[in-house]
C-alpha cells in the first residue's frame, strides 16, 4: 500500500522508481540468438533491463488434428522457474504462468505468424509440430512483452532438422530452411495505475497497478491478440489511449528483431 502510494505520487510527477518516464522502456534491450544452438532448433535470449528470458524451439513430427488434416501445430509454454525470482514456487504451473503462456501463444497463433499449411508433410498423416518453451532467468517485470519477443526471436532463429529416408527426424543434421513465417507479431503491454498509463513495469509497479492490457500488433499495424489483466475495470477512453500508446511503443521492440 505504501509502495502503491509512492509509485502513484511519482507518476503524478511524470517519473518512476528508477527515474524513467511512464512511456519509456528500460535500457538496454538486447536479443542474442542461438543460446542453445546445440540442443534446440532455434533459441534466443532477451534482456529488457534486468529482466532476462530465454526461449527455445523444438521441432518434431506428429499426426495432424482430424479437423485440420493439412496443418502443422504450435505449442507455446512458459515455466516460471523458481530460479528466476523469490516470488515463484516449485510445483504445478501457476495461473500466472498459464496466462502468460496462453497470451503469448495466441499472439503467434491467431495472426498465423507461421504458415501452418506449409508445416504439412503428408495430409492427414504427417505434420511438423512446433514447440516453443520460454523460461525467465531473472524475472524483474514485464514478462509479457519479454516472453513474446523471446518466442518470436527463437522462432526466427529456428532451422528445420533433416529427415532421413524413412521420414524420421535426424536431429544431428540441420537444414538451412527457416520456419515458414508470414508475419511478425510483437506484444506491448500497457499498465494503468490511477489515471496514469505506463509500460515496461518493474515488479513493484506491476503489483501496484490496477489493470493491464496486452496488445499484439503485426507489421501493418493490425491487432491480432489482446488480453486485459488484473481485477480493475478500464473504460473505452482508457482502451483507446492504451492501444495508441502500445502501437507506438511496439515499434521500438520490433526494431530489435533481426
Amino acid at each position: 500500500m505504501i509502495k502503491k502510494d509512492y509509485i502513484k505520487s511519482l507518476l503524478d510527477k511524470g517519473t518512476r522508481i528508477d527515474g524513467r518516464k511512464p512511456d519509456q522502456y528500460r535500457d538496454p534491450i538486447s536479443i542474442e540468438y542461438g543460446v542453445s544452438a546445440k540442443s534446440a532448433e532455434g533459441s534466443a535470449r532477451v534482456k529488457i533491463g534486468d529482466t532476462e528470458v530465454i526461449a527455445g524451439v523444438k521441432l518434431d513430427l506428429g499426426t495432424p488434428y482430424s479437423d485440420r488434416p493439412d496443418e502443422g501445430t504450435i505449442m507455446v509454454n512458459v515455466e516460471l522457474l523458481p530460479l528466476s525470482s523469490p516470488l515463484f514456487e516449485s510445483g504445478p504451473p501457476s495461473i500466472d504462468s498459464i496466462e502468460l503462456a496462453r497470451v503469448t501463444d495466441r499472439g503467434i497463433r491467431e495472426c498465423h505468424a507461421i504458415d501452418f499449411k506449409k508445416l504439412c508433410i503428408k495430409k492427414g498423416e504427417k505434420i511438423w509440430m512446433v514447440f516453443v518453451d520460454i523460461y525467465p532467468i531473472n524475472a524483474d517485470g514485464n514478462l509479457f512483452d519479454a516472453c513474446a519477443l523471446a518466442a518470436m526471436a527463437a522462432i526466427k532463429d529456428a532451422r528445420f532438422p533433416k529427415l532421413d529416408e524413412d521420414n524420421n527426424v535426424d536431429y544431428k543434421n540441420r537444414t538451412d530452411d527457416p520456419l515458414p513465417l508470414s508475419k511478425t507479431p510483437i506484444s506491448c503491454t500497457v499498465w494503468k495505475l490511477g489515471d496514469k498509463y505506463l509500460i515496461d513495469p518493474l515488479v513493484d509497479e506491476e503489483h501496484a497497478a490496477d489493470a493491464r492490457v496486452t496488445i499484439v500488433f503485426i507489421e501493418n499495424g493490425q491487432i491480432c491478440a489482446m488480453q486485459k489483466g488484473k481485477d480493475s475495470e478500464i473504460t473505452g477512453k482508457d482502451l483507446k489511449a492504451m492501444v495508441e500508446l502500445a502501437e507506438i511503443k511496439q515499434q521500438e521492440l520490433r526494431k530489435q528483431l533481426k
Partner: protein
Amino acid sequence: MKYTERFDGRKPEELREMDAKVGVVKNAVGSAMFKIGKTVAIAAVYGPKDLFPKHLQNPKKGVLRCNYNMVAFSGAGDRVRPGPSRRSKEISMVTKNALEPALDLSPFPKTVVDVFVELIQTDAGTRCAGICAASLALADAGFKMKDLVCAVSGGVVGGMPVADVDYAEESFEGGSVDIPVAMMPRNGEITLLQLDGEVSKEDLLKAVDLAKKGCQDIYELQRKALREKYAKEETK
C-alpha cells in the same frame, strides 16, 4: 572396437573448454553459470528462509534443498517433457549430497536454503556442470564453506581411460563407461561417485584419477570466477 584418438582431438586427461561466471541472476542471493563444452548450467540460491512443514526443520542447522532441471529444449533429440522425472529427482538428490559436506548451515537452524539448477544446453556431463555451478552460487551467496565442490566425469571409452566424457563418447559403439565424480580439491574428499557401464578395477581407478585431476582445473576456474566478481568489488 578400440578407441585410440578422441573424437574432438582432446588428450585423454584434457577437459572440454570451460567458462564460469558468478552473479548471473540478480534476483537470487547467489548465482553462477558454468559451461563445459556445450553443456551449460545456471544455478541460483535463495534463502535461508523459514522451512514448512515444520517436521522438515532441523533444530541444529539449515536444510539444503536442490532441484536439477533440464529445460524442455535442452535435450539432444526430442523435447524434454517439463516437470520432474525419476532421473531429475535422483540427480537433484545426488547434487545435494555432493554439496552438503562442503557447506556449514549451522548458523541457520530451522531454515531452508534452495538451490535451483537449470540446464539450458546439454552435451553430457550435466550433473557435474550443475554441481560446479551450484557450488559457485553458494559461495557467491556468502555461505560458510569448507571448500568449493568441483565435479567432472571420468570414463573409459573403447578401452581408453579419459576425463570429461561428452555425448559422442558416451554413445561410442565399442562401449563406454561414465563415472561422474565430485570432490573438494583441498583435501581430495569425494562427494559424488556414480558409474554406468562395465569396467575393470584398474581402469576404474585410472578414470577416477583423471576425473580428480580434472577437478583441479575446474577449481582454478571457479576461484578465478569468484575473484573476478569480488576483487572488482573490493577495489571500488
